[in-house]
Protein backbone atom coordinates (compact mmCIF):
# COMPACT_ATOMS: atom_id res chain seq x y z
CA UNK A 1 0.00 0.00 0.00
CA UNK A 2 1.16 3.50 -0.82
CA UNK A 3 0.50 6.17 1.83
CA UNK A 4 0.96 9.92 1.41
CA UNK A 5 1.31 12.32 4.35
CA UNK A 6 1.12 16.13 4.35
CA UNK A 7 4.20 17.14 6.32
CA UNK A 8 6.57 19.96 7.19
CA UNK A 9 9.66 17.80 6.64
CA UNK A 10 10.93 14.73 4.79
CA UNK A 11 11.29 12.05 7.48
CA UNK A 12 9.33 9.91 9.90
CA UNK A 13 10.12 12.39 12.68
CA UNK A 14 8.92 15.44 10.77
CA UNK A 15 5.83 17.18 12.08
CA UNK A 16 2.71 16.74 9.99
CA UNK A 17 1.36 19.78 8.15
CA UNK A 18 -2.35 20.17 8.96
CA UNK A 19 -2.95 21.95 5.65
CA UNK A 20 -3.59 20.07 2.44
CA UNK A 21 -3.22 22.60 -0.39
CA UNK A 22 -0.35 24.52 1.14
CA UNK A 23 1.47 21.67 2.84
CA UNK A 24 5.25 22.04 2.54
CA UNK A 25 5.90 18.45 1.55
CA UNK A 26 4.16 15.22 0.60
CA UNK A 27 5.92 12.31 2.31
CA UNK A 28 5.32 9.05 0.49
CA UNK A 29 5.60 5.68 2.24
CA UNK A 30 5.55 2.54 0.19
CA UNK A 31 4.71 -0.39 2.46
CA UNK A 32 5.69 -3.04 -0.11
CA UNK A 33 9.39 -2.21 -0.12
CA UNK A 34 9.42 -0.18 3.12
CA UNK A 35 10.70 2.93 1.33
CA UNK A 36 10.15 6.52 2.37
CA UNK A 37 10.40 9.29 -0.22
CA UNK A 38 8.97 12.79 -0.62
CA UNK A 39 7.96 15.44 -3.11
CA UNK A 40 7.97 19.18 -2.48
CA UNK A 41 4.80 21.22 -2.63
CA UNK A 42 6.67 24.50 -2.15
CA UNK A 43 5.49 25.93 -5.48
CA UNK A 44 2.02 26.50 -4.02
CA UNK A 45 3.42 28.97 -1.49
CA UNK A 46 3.40 31.82 -3.97
CA UNK A 47 0.03 30.95 -5.52
CA UNK A 48 -2.71 33.37 -4.58
CA UNK A 49 -5.42 31.01 -5.75
CA UNK A 50 -5.83 27.37 -6.56
CA UNK A 51 -3.04 25.95 -4.37
CA UNK A 52 -5.29 23.06 -3.38
CA UNK A 53 -5.86 22.15 -7.02
CA UNK A 54 -2.16 21.90 -7.78
CA UNK A 55 -1.57 19.91 -4.59
CA UNK A 56 -4.42 17.56 -5.53
CA UNK A 57 -2.87 17.09 -8.94
CA UNK A 58 0.41 16.00 -7.34
CA UNK A 59 -1.44 13.49 -5.17
CA UNK A 60 -3.30 12.20 -8.21
CA UNK A 61 0.01 11.64 -10.00
CA UNK A 62 1.46 9.82 -6.97
CA UNK A 63 -1.59 7.58 -7.14
CA UNK A 64 -1.61 6.54 -3.45
CA UNK A 65 -4.07 4.26 -1.69
CA UNK A 66 -4.19 6.40 1.44
CA UNK A 67 -3.76 10.13 2.19
CA UNK A 68 -3.20 11.20 5.79
CA UNK A 69 -3.51 14.90 6.60
CA UNK A 70 -4.83 17.37 9.18
CA UNK A 71 -7.84 19.38 8.16
CA UNK A 72 -8.71 17.74 4.88
CA UNK A 73 -8.88 19.19 1.37
CA UNK A 74 -11.30 21.90 0.26
CA UNK A 75 -14.14 21.37 -2.16
CA UNK A 76 -12.25 22.37 -5.30
CA UNK A 77 -9.31 20.06 -4.50
CA UNK A 78 -11.82 17.33 -3.79
CA UNK A 79 -13.16 17.72 -7.31
CA UNK A 80 -9.76 16.47 -8.52
CA UNK A 81 -9.10 13.96 -5.74
CA UNK A 82 -12.35 12.14 -6.38
CA UNK A 83 -10.84 11.08 -9.71
CA UNK A 84 -8.35 8.96 -7.81
CA UNK A 85 -8.86 5.85 -5.71
CA UNK A 86 -7.33 7.49 -2.62
CA UNK A 87 -8.99 7.14 0.79
CA UNK A 88 -8.39 10.14 3.03
CA UNK A 89 -7.85 10.29 6.78
CA UNK A 90 -7.80 13.52 8.80
CA UNK A 91 -7.01 14.73 12.32
CA UNK A 92 -3.28 14.00 12.21
CA UNK A 93 -2.24 17.67 12.06
CA UNK A 94 -0.55 17.76 15.47
CA UNK A 95 1.40 14.52 15.11
CA UNK A 96 4.71 13.51 13.56
CA UNK A 97 4.60 11.44 10.38
CA UNK A 98 5.46 8.31 12.38
CA UNK A 99 2.75 9.02 14.95
CA UNK A 100 0.25 9.65 12.18
CA UNK A 101 1.14 6.33 10.55
CA UNK A 102 0.77 4.46 13.85
CA UNK A 103 -2.52 6.21 14.57
CA UNK A 104 -3.74 5.16 11.13
CA UNK A 105 -2.70 1.52 11.73
CA UNK A 106 -4.43 1.60 15.10
CA UNK A 107 -7.62 2.85 13.44
CA UNK A 108 -7.54 6.09 15.42
CA UNK A 109 -7.85 8.51 12.50
CA UNK A 110 -11.18 9.65 11.13
CA UNK A 111 -12.03 9.08 7.50
CA UNK A 112 -12.49 12.36 5.64
CA UNK A 113 -16.09 13.11 4.80
CA UNK A 114 -16.86 15.73 2.19
CA UNK A 115 -18.79 18.69 3.54
CA UNK A 116 -20.79 19.17 0.37
Amino acid at each position, binding site marked *: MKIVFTAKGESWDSPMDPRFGRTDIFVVYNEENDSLSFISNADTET*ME*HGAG*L*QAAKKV*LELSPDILITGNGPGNKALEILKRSKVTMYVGAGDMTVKEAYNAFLAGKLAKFESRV
Partner: protein
Amino acid sequence: MKITIASGKGGTGKTTISTNLSSYLAIGADVVLADLDVEEPNSKLFIEGDLVFEKACDKRVPRWIKEECTLCGKCEEVCRFNAVIKVGDEILIFPELCHSCYACSELCPTGSLPMIPQKIGELKHFKTENLDFVEGRLDIGEEQAVPLISQVIEYVDEKFSQDTIKLFDAPPGTSCPVIEASRGSDFVILVTEPTPFGLNDLKLAVETMRVLCQKFGVVINRHGIGDNSIEEYCNAEGIPIIAKIPNDRRVAELYSKGELIYPKIQEFETALKQIAEFVGGIK
Protein backbone atom coordinates in the same frame (compact mmCIF):
# COMPACT_ATOMS: atom_id res chain seq x y z
CA MET B 1 -17.64 64.46 -11.31
CA LYS B 2 -16.85 60.99 -9.99
CA ILE B 3 -15.85 60.54 -6.37
CA THR B 4 -14.92 57.25 -4.70
CA ILE B 5 -15.24 56.85 -0.95
CA ALA B 6 -12.64 54.30 0.11
CA SER B 7 -10.52 53.36 3.12
CA GLY B 8 -7.77 50.99 3.95
CA LYS B 9 -9.35 49.74 7.13
CA GLY B 10 -12.87 48.39 7.23
CA GLY B 11 -15.43 49.89 9.55
CA THR B 12 -14.12 53.45 9.41
CA GLY B 13 -17.32 54.98 8.03
CA LYS B 14 -17.34 54.66 4.23
CA THR B 15 -21.02 53.82 4.07
CA THR B 16 -21.97 56.44 6.68
CA ILE B 17 -20.19 59.12 4.67
CA SER B 18 -21.39 57.81 1.28
CA THR B 19 -25.07 57.67 2.19
CA ASN B 20 -25.11 60.94 4.09
CA LEU B 21 -23.00 62.83 1.57
CA SER B 22 -25.11 61.67 -1.35
CA SER B 23 -28.34 62.65 0.40
CA TYR B 24 -26.85 65.98 1.46
CA LEU B 25 -25.57 66.82 -2.04
CA ALA B 26 -28.84 65.71 -3.64
CA ILE B 27 -30.61 68.64 -2.03
CA GLY B 28 -29.05 70.93 -4.60
CA ALA B 29 -27.68 68.75 -7.42
CA ASP B 30 -28.22 65.59 -9.45
CA VAL B 31 -26.55 62.79 -7.54
CA VAL B 32 -26.18 59.06 -7.99
CA LEU B 33 -24.69 56.83 -5.31
CA ALA B 34 -23.40 53.40 -6.31
CA ASP B 35 -22.58 50.73 -3.74
CA LEU B 36 -19.52 48.99 -5.16
CA ASP B 37 -18.88 46.92 -2.04
CA VAL B 38 -20.53 44.10 -3.96
CA GLU B 39 -19.41 41.37 -1.59
CA GLU B 40 -21.34 42.95 1.27
CA PRO B 41 -23.40 45.88 0.02
CA ASN B 42 -25.13 47.79 2.82
CA SER B 43 -25.81 51.34 1.61
CA LYS B 44 -29.34 50.27 0.71
CA LEU B 45 -30.11 49.90 4.41
CA PHE B 46 -30.07 53.70 4.66
CA ILE B 47 -31.88 54.50 1.44
CA GLU B 48 -35.56 53.91 0.87
CA GLY B 49 -36.42 54.08 -2.79
CA ASP B 50 -38.38 52.43 -5.55
CA LEU B 51 -36.77 49.80 -7.71
CA VAL B 52 -36.70 51.14 -11.27
CA PHE B 53 -34.36 48.68 -12.98
CA GLU B 54 -32.60 45.40 -12.30
CA LYS B 55 -30.49 42.99 -14.30
CA ALA B 56 -28.35 39.91 -13.85
CA CYS B 57 -24.61 40.44 -14.35
CA ASP B 58 -22.30 37.80 -15.65
CA LYS B 59 -18.70 37.07 -16.37
CA ARG B 60 -17.36 34.92 -19.15
CA VAL B 61 -15.72 31.62 -18.31
CA PRO B 62 -14.38 28.90 -20.59
CA ARG B 63 -16.35 25.74 -21.30
CA TRP B 64 -14.51 22.62 -22.38
CA ILE B 65 -15.55 20.99 -25.66
CA LYS B 66 -14.21 17.50 -25.22
CA GLU B 67 -14.60 16.32 -28.82
CA GLU B 68 -12.12 18.77 -30.35
CA CYS B 69 -9.56 18.78 -27.51
CA THR B 70 -6.16 17.15 -28.09
CA LEU B 71 -5.22 17.44 -24.38
CA CYS B 72 -2.11 19.45 -25.26
CA GLY B 73 -2.24 21.23 -21.89
CA LYS B 74 -1.64 24.73 -23.28
CA CYS B 75 -4.73 26.05 -21.42
CA GLU B 76 -3.45 24.90 -18.05
CA GLU B 77 0.00 26.25 -18.80
CA VAL B 78 -1.23 29.79 -19.61
CA CYS B 79 -3.75 30.10 -16.75
CA ARG B 80 -2.05 31.93 -13.90
CA PHE B 81 -5.09 31.52 -11.66
CA ASN B 82 -5.22 27.71 -11.65
CA ALA B 83 -8.75 27.91 -13.04
CA VAL B 84 -8.05 25.39 -15.82
CA ILE B 85 -6.52 22.09 -14.78
CA LYS B 86 -5.69 19.09 -16.89
CA VAL B 87 -6.35 15.89 -15.00
CA GLY B 88 -5.75 12.67 -16.89
CA ASP B 89 -7.81 12.91 -20.09
CA GLU B 90 -10.04 15.69 -18.76
CA ILE B 91 -9.85 19.49 -18.63
CA LEU B 92 -11.45 20.74 -15.42
CA ILE B 93 -12.61 24.33 -15.15
CA PHE B 94 -13.06 26.14 -11.84
CA PRO B 95 -15.20 29.16 -12.70
CA GLU B 96 -14.78 30.84 -9.27
CA LEU B 97 -11.05 31.17 -9.95
CA CYS B 98 -11.40 32.42 -13.53
CA HIS B 99 -10.51 36.08 -14.13
CA SER B 100 -12.00 36.06 -17.65
CA CYS B 101 -8.63 36.88 -19.21
CA TYR B 102 -9.44 34.70 -22.27
CA ALA B 103 -5.86 33.34 -22.44
CA CYS B 104 -6.89 29.66 -22.44
CA SER B 105 -9.68 30.28 -24.91
CA GLU B 106 -7.63 32.38 -27.34
CA LEU B 107 -4.53 30.19 -27.20
CA CYS B 108 -6.29 26.84 -27.50
CA PRO B 109 -5.09 25.44 -30.87
CA THR B 110 -8.37 23.63 -31.52
CA GLY B 111 -10.79 26.25 -30.18
CA SER B 112 -12.04 23.84 -27.54
CA LEU B 113 -12.58 26.44 -24.82
CA PRO B 114 -15.25 28.92 -25.92
CA MET B 115 -16.09 31.65 -23.38
CA ILE B 116 -19.64 31.34 -22.03
CA PRO B 117 -21.49 33.88 -19.85
CA GLN B 118 -22.15 32.80 -16.28
CA LYS B 119 -24.24 34.78 -13.78
CA ILE B 120 -22.22 36.19 -10.86
CA GLY B 121 -24.57 38.76 -9.35
CA GLU B 122 -27.18 41.45 -9.78
CA LEU B 123 -27.42 45.16 -10.40
CA LYS B 124 -30.35 47.13 -9.00
CA HIS B 125 -31.26 50.75 -9.56
CA PHE B 126 -33.49 52.55 -7.03
CA LYS B 127 -34.88 56.07 -7.06
CA THR B 128 -35.79 58.18 -4.06
CA GLU B 129 -37.32 61.64 -4.22
CA ASN B 130 -34.08 63.30 -5.33
CA LEU B 131 -31.40 60.62 -5.30
CA ASP B 132 -30.53 57.73 -7.62
CA PHE B 133 -29.02 54.68 -6.00
CA VAL B 134 -27.39 51.73 -7.79
CA GLU B 135 -26.25 48.59 -6.07
CA GLY B 136 -24.14 45.65 -7.19
CA ARG B 137 -24.63 42.42 -5.25
CA LEU B 138 -22.37 39.41 -5.84
CA ASP B 139 -23.95 35.96 -5.63
CA ILE B 140 -22.99 33.84 -2.63
CA GLY B 141 -19.98 31.67 -3.41
CA GLU B 142 -18.62 33.89 -6.18
CA GLU B 143 -15.02 34.98 -5.63
CA GLN B 144 -14.53 37.63 -8.31
CA ALA B 145 -15.89 41.06 -7.36
CA VAL B 146 -14.11 43.03 -10.09
CA PRO B 147 -16.25 42.02 -13.10
CA LEU B 148 -19.41 43.05 -11.24
CA ILE B 149 -17.91 46.30 -9.96
CA SER B 150 -16.88 47.27 -13.49
CA GLN B 151 -20.38 46.53 -14.81
CA VAL B 152 -21.97 48.72 -12.12
CA ILE B 153 -19.60 51.58 -12.96
CA GLU B 154 -20.32 51.07 -16.66
CA TYR B 155 -24.07 51.27 -15.99
CA VAL B 156 -23.67 54.49 -13.98
CA ASP B 157 -21.49 56.02 -16.70
CA GLU B 158 -24.01 55.18 -19.42
CA LYS B 159 -27.13 56.12 -17.49
CA PHE B 160 -26.10 59.45 -15.99
CA SER B 161 -24.84 62.65 -17.57
CA GLN B 162 -21.47 64.31 -17.10
CA ASP B 163 -23.09 66.87 -14.80
CA THR B 164 -24.38 64.28 -12.35
CA ILE B 165 -22.30 63.88 -9.21
CA LYS B 166 -21.38 60.20 -9.03
CA LEU B 167 -20.43 58.81 -5.65
CA PHE B 168 -18.97 55.32 -5.35
CA ASP B 169 -18.99 53.49 -2.02
CA ALA B 170 -15.92 51.25 -2.36
CA PRO B 171 -15.02 48.00 -0.61
CA PRO B 172 -12.40 48.14 2.17
CA GLY B 173 -8.79 47.11 1.71
CA THR B 174 -6.34 47.83 -1.08
CA SER B 175 -6.79 44.88 -3.43
CA CYS B 176 -8.22 44.60 -6.95
CA PRO B 177 -11.86 45.49 -6.08
CA VAL B 178 -10.73 48.76 -4.48
CA ILE B 179 -8.52 49.58 -7.44
CA GLU B 180 -11.40 48.90 -9.84
CA ALA B 181 -13.68 51.13 -7.73
CA SER B 182 -11.14 53.97 -7.61
CA ARG B 183 -9.18 54.14 -10.84
CA GLY B 184 -11.77 55.89 -13.02
CA SER B 185 -12.71 58.54 -10.46
CA ASP B 186 -11.75 62.19 -10.36
CA PHE B 187 -11.13 62.08 -6.64
CA VAL B 188 -10.90 59.54 -3.82
CA ILE B 189 -11.95 60.28 -0.25
CA LEU B 190 -10.07 58.02 2.16
CA VAL B 191 -12.04 57.61 5.37
CA THR B 192 -9.96 56.70 8.40
CA GLU B 193 -10.04 56.69 12.18
CA PRO B 194 -7.37 58.08 14.53
CA THR B 195 -6.03 54.78 15.83
CA PRO B 196 -2.85 52.80 15.09
CA PHE B 197 -4.95 50.40 12.99
CA GLY B 198 -6.45 53.31 11.10
CA LEU B 199 -3.01 54.78 10.43
CA ASN B 200 -1.48 51.49 9.33
CA ASP B 201 -4.22 50.81 6.81
CA LEU B 202 -4.40 54.44 5.69
CA LYS B 203 -0.73 54.26 4.73
CA LEU B 204 -1.46 51.20 2.57
CA ALA B 205 -4.39 52.99 0.94
CA VAL B 206 -2.25 56.09 0.29
CA GLU B 207 0.45 53.95 -1.35
CA THR B 208 -2.23 52.35 -3.53
CA MET B 209 -3.63 55.72 -4.62
CA ARG B 210 -0.14 56.99 -5.40
CA VAL B 211 0.56 54.00 -7.63
CA LEU B 212 -2.73 54.77 -9.42
CA CYS B 213 -1.70 58.47 -9.74
CA GLN B 214 -5.07 59.17 -8.13
CA LYS B 215 -5.99 62.47 -6.44
CA PHE B 216 -7.11 61.88 -2.87
CA GLY B 217 -7.77 63.43 0.53
CA VAL B 218 -8.52 62.15 4.00
CA VAL B 219 -11.59 62.36 6.21
CA ILE B 220 -10.93 61.52 9.85
CA ASN B 221 -13.99 59.88 11.34
CA ARG B 222 -14.56 59.39 15.07
CA HIS B 223 -12.13 62.21 15.73
CA GLY B 224 -11.19 62.39 19.39
CA ILE B 225 -10.67 58.68 20.01
CA GLY B 226 -7.10 57.42 19.82
CA ASP B 227 -4.22 59.73 18.99
CA ASN B 228 -2.90 62.45 16.66
CA SER B 229 -0.84 60.15 14.47
CA ILE B 230 -3.16 60.45 11.42
CA GLU B 231 -2.90 64.23 11.41
CA GLU B 232 0.87 64.12 11.91
CA TYR B 233 1.20 61.62 9.05
CA CYS B 234 -1.04 63.60 6.67
CA ASN B 235 0.75 66.88 7.46
CA ALA B 236 4.17 65.30 6.93
CA GLU B 237 3.05 63.74 3.63
CA GLY B 238 1.19 66.82 2.38
CA ILE B 239 -2.14 64.99 2.23
CA PRO B 240 -5.19 67.24 2.64
CA ILE B 241 -7.42 66.54 5.65
CA ILE B 242 -10.83 67.39 4.27
CA ALA B 243 -12.87 67.07 7.44
CA LYS B 244 -12.78 65.71 10.95
CA ILE B 245 -15.99 64.15 12.20
CA PRO B 246 -16.16 64.20 16.00
CA ASN B 247 -16.73 60.90 17.78
CA ASP B 248 -20.31 60.92 18.99
CA ARG B 249 -22.34 58.05 20.42
CA ARG B 250 -25.48 59.45 18.80
CA VAL B 251 -23.97 58.74 15.33
CA ALA B 252 -23.69 55.05 16.17
CA GLU B 253 -27.22 55.04 17.54
CA LEU B 254 -28.69 56.58 14.39
CA TYR B 255 -26.58 54.30 12.18
CA SER B 256 -27.81 51.22 14.05
CA LYS B 257 -31.37 52.27 13.27
CA GLY B 258 -30.59 52.75 9.58
CA GLU B 259 -31.11 56.50 9.76
CA LEU B 260 -29.17 59.32 8.16
CA ILE B 261 -27.00 61.32 10.55
CA TYR B 262 -26.71 64.86 9.26
CA PRO B 263 -30.38 65.89 9.67
CA LYS B 264 -30.00 65.29 13.42
CA ILE B 265 -26.40 66.09 14.30
CA GLN B 266 -25.10 69.56 13.50
CA GLU B 267 -21.37 68.70 13.68
CA PHE B 268 -21.89 65.94 11.15
CA GLU B 269 -23.64 68.28 8.74
CA THR B 270 -20.77 70.77 9.14
CA ALA B 271 -18.31 68.03 8.17
CA LEU B 272 -20.40 67.14 5.08
CA LYS B 273 -20.41 70.81 4.11
CA GLN B 274 -16.61 70.87 4.35
CA ILE B 275 -16.38 67.74 2.18
CA ALA B 276 -18.83 69.21 -0.35
CA GLU B 277 -16.89 72.46 -0.54
CA PHE B 278 -13.61 70.61 -0.92
CA VAL B 279 -14.73 68.33 -3.72
CA GLY B 280 -16.60 71.22 -5.34
CA GLY B 281 -13.26 73.04 -5.56
CA ILE B 282 -11.49 70.20 -7.39
CA LYS B 283 -11.43 69.93 -11.23
